[in-house]
């Protein structure tokens, strides 16, 4: 099998050189079948786990320092340890991947569903629980089908369900699927959704899932990629796992790099060992910014992360370093933007996302994100006012008070503000909307001002200039588009 190349049956995945843990079967077109899985160490991890006491399995995961891959990067073994000795307890798998730029869990679910299911069963075994709900994002039909098939096969072959591997161990894994709501990726909202409710986050405390989760019972919420490591980890052990990656971030992790790089793709990497520069420019990875352009900015960890710039390229992809530098690695989503990018448009696009996805529970997020969106739209429509720039910052500060996390610009003498932001809201969605605003205004205030100045000229010319200036990525409100029939939204 050729390496360091795209894999046709796993769109977006690049089979690069380097150690593989969770994607090691991706090169096989039939990796999702039970037959191929069993031929490639499938369910060997479970066998190993069940030869151990549950607590030993939990300790192994703790020893390996398996970091959560959902965004917060908290060690899974430590999280498991937060469960009080109360039953029933539940495992909920977060497969609701929807952070802008994030693209990895879907591949894991489509390409290697058994690896995930095995991880679920191992985790259930370690945690002494028998009910696991695998929550897959609603829009991911293929992932749902692949998991449904894999679960049916796993049930039929005693890897899940009654009497696992012929023992007395009963563990059910139930496929659940969502219906389109980004906020449900937040663990307490995920639990609400799994209870059949509107996916509105709960306040932590008192509703820390490990103590008061699903049906207010102890619940562990783990990410798909996190659990997909367990097959390999149980087979090879914690020491082998820690051979990979950095000391603080052992193992590998999946990163999706999108945007203006030559080879966007999903890569499994030893994250703490490489820098952003390695990732964006390395031959083994993205092979540089597309021809004729320079890097303008990049998002290091999903749409909610404050932006980085050239100044941060040599940072290692290490969560603590990135946090200190003013952003986060989050869910492993990197979006690279070159010099053709309109910072204000990019900002609006991200803000609009949060406005559309706000659940509406907390006042500042519900009202603030849509206000931010309206102001930005007005600026881009040519009706901006000078005071709108500071108004944006001020509205943002009412959602996320204090100094908002930001990267340093040595040329401008601005220093880094470490992650995370403060919030007047229950969950981080509202504050996330502030990331692009603060990032864009802090670095590219002049671009905002330019749009506001242009407001005083002729309208059509404004849009025309706008498009010409930006490689066809303009704010395309052309005559044809406005002439088409209106559809109710």
């Amino acid at each position, binding site marked *: 099998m050729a390496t360091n190349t795209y894999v046709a049956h796993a769109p977006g995945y690049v089979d690069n050189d380097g150690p593989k843990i969770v994607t090691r079967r991706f090169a096989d077109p039939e990796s999702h079948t039970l037959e191929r899985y069993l031929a490639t160490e499938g369910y060997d991890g479970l066998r190993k786990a069940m030869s*151990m006491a549950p607590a030993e399995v939990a300790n192994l995961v703790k020893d390996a320092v398996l970091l959560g891959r959902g965004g917060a990067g908290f060690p899974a073994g430590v999280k498991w340890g937060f469960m009080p000795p109360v039953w029933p307890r539940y495992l909920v798998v977060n497969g609701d991947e929807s952070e802008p730029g994030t693209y990895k869990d879907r591949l894991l679910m489509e390409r290697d569903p058994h690896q995930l299911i095995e991880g679920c069963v191992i985790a259930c075994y370690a945690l002494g629980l028998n009910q696991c709900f695998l929550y897959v994002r609603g829009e991911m039909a293929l992932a749902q089908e692949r998991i449904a098939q894999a679960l049916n096969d796993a*049930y039929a072959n005693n890897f899940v369900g009654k009497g696992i591997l012929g023992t007395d161990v009963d563990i059910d894994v139930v496929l659940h699927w969502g219906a389109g709501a980004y906020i449900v990726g937040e663990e307490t909202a995920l639990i609400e959704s799994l209870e059949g409710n509107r996916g509105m986050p709960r306040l932590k405390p008192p509703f820390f899932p490990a103590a008061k989760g699903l049906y207010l019972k102890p619940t562990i919420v783990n990410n798909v990629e996190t659990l997909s490591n367990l097959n390999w980890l149980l087979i090879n052990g914690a020491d082998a796992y820690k051979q990979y990656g950095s000391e603080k971030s052992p193992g590998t992790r999946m990163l999706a790099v999108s945007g203006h790089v030559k080879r966007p793709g999903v890569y499994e990497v030893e994250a703490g060992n490489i820098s952003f520069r390695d990732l964006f420019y390395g031959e083994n990875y993205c092979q540089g910014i597309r021809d004729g352009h320079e890097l303008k900015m990049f998002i290091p960890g999903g749409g909610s992360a404050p932006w980085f710039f050239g100044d941060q390229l040599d940072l290692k992809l290490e969560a603590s370093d990135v946090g200190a530098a003013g952003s986060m690695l989050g869910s492993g989503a990197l979006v690279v933007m070159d010099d053709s990018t309109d910072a204000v448009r990019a900002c609006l*696009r991200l803000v609009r996302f949060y406005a559309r996805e706000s659940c509406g529970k907390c006042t500042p997020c519900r009202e603030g994100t849509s206000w931010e969106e309206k102001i930005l739209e007005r600026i881009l429509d040519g009706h901006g006012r000078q005071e709108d720039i500071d108004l944006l910052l001020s509205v943002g500060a009412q959602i996320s008070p204090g100094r908002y996390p930001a990267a340093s610009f040595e040329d401008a003498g601005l220093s880094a503000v470490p992650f995370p932001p403060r919030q007047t809201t229950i969950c981080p969605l509202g504050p996330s909307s502030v990331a692009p605003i603060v990032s864009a205004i802090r670095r590219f205030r002049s671009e905002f001002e330019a749009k506001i100045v242009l407001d005083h000229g002729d309208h059509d010319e404004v849009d025309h200039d706008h498009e010409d200036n930006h490689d066809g990525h303009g704010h395309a409100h052309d005559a044809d588009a406005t002439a088409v029939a209106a559809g109710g939204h």
Partner: protein
Amino acid sequence: MSRLTPENELLASEIISRYPRPKSALIPLLHLAQEQDGYVADDAMEHLAELVGITPAEVLGTCSFYEMFKREPVGRYLLNICTNIACQLTGGEELLHEAEKVLGVRPGGTTADGMITLEDVECIAACTEGPCLQVNYRYEYRVDPAGLRKLVDDLRSGARTDIPHHGTLQRVRQHIPADRLGGIEAPEVAGTPAWFTARQAPPSEQKAGS
């Protein structure tokens, strides 16, 4: 439109039985209703309320929170074009405008022939393959204007037999045979699994066959 058919009602009770509390099945059941009618009808919501023991208002409260649930009929195909950041950078908005022209509708609108409803959507997790879109939640990657036109033609001509009508998500469903089910219990009665209590110490040489 309609309540669940007897067949789907049977399927609904199977789904409900997989959860410790009936209401947890609500989102999958709403999908089932949408699969049946192409959208979630008021009557279906009333039926689901009966099945899980809540009020229709509570069903609507949940249903209306999630954007995949359509409470009015839509086209046979839902064409969802991603315009979020990664796709914006690679032409997602231009693709959306192209689709508006090709289909003659704005996002949210349905073509006159009732075949296609256009939507602009948020990130659908194919960011490296932008601009991307989904038709009834099946992916199309790196779509250019020509590709879009061909896609629309194929949808209209019925050539895309790989894509089910709107509402159908899973053509493979989870099914747990009764003798394979470990056992789902209400949180009020479920306790510590017996096997866990018995396995506090390492099991001595436990050989498992498969």
